[in-house]
């Protein structure tokens, strides 16, 4: 992410230190992660110490300090999905992408995360990709669904 883009986001929020969280969220959304350069820029422009930004960036799960893939795959391992075979879905995704939860593949295509209940247990086991819910998954359906992402 180039510095101009970071500056634009900061300007959009009037460079207000009280908008720090929103600025960080915007950068995360735009770039999928928070790079050291971007955070250093935010710190400098807002006059907020880097230690504080670092604390916030590590406090909330919404932020990532390492690059994330283009597609975010969330496998629900909540109770309902678990008893309906979430482990097999997770295994399928791990096999197809070669990554484990918390990881991102080398092509930056997929990032994998597990979640504990997406709030639609009746559809379990559930896989969510970029916010789109894939319900009643089987290993075969899962592998097919992943193939549709570029």
């Amino acid at each position, binding site marked *: 992410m180039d510095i101009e883009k970071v500056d634009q986001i900061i300007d959009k929020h009037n460079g207000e230190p009280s908008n720090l969280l929103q600025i960080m969220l915007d950068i995360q959304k735009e770039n999928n992660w928070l790079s050291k350069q971007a955070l250093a820029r935010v710190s400098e422009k807002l006059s907020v*110490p*880097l*230690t*504080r930004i*670092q*604390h916030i960036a*590590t*406090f909330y799960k919404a932020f990532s300090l390492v690059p994330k893939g283009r597609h975010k795959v969330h496998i629900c391992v909540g109770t309902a999905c678990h008893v309906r075979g979430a482990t097999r879905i997770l295994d399928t995704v791990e096999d197809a992408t070669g990554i484990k939860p918390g990881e991102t593949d080398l092509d930056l295509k997929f990032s994998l995360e597990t979640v504990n209940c997406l709030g639609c247990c009746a559809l379990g086991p559930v896989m969510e990709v970029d916010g789109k819910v894939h319900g009643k998954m089987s290993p075969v359906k899962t592998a097919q669904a992943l193939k549709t992402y570029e």
Partner: protein
Amino acid sequence: MGDIKFEIDGKTVTADPGMTVLEAAQKEGIYIPTLCHHEKLEPFGGCRLCIVEVEDRGWTKYVVSCVFPAAKDIIVRTRSEKVDRLRKTIIELLMAHAPDAPDLVTLAKEYNADPNRYERSASFCIHCGLCVRYCAEVAGKNAIGFVDRGINKEISFVPDIAAQVCNDCKECFPLCPTSYLQAAFVYTQALSFPDAAKTEQSAGK
């Protein structure tokens, strides 16, 4: 000035508005154990050791004296059976991190605390925040901060800043009740600016 009157351990004391119970006690020479308190720093309420019993209009409650504002007519007891029991557990919990911290060892003797009551934690930082707060509030350098949260909370130097300022400051080092801060610094230095460590060694510092 001194217009709040209340009682600590049977003694009538006075406090100015905005003063905490701990400050009032210290002014009168009444001892309350503390770990995360530092007169130059904002109250933090992190270690919970300074817990006391407060009786307010007939209600008894347990509060952390370093952040609890002094109030008219309250009755404070710095020791009681329950306070001692609470403190003992707090010491035991802290000792799961830092069993060898001198302050804790002394307190453990006084309160009969068992250092091995809880399972040992890998990190010996007790999250008193003295280093972080001193760096931000007094030194104004912001070279060290907290990261993560809950049981994963840790202190962490910002390597780029630490490389520039820490070797000439190190004012926070003696504040750490455990030796975690020094360890974290050596670790950061070895990873991020090893050259400075080498020069220091050859200079025999």
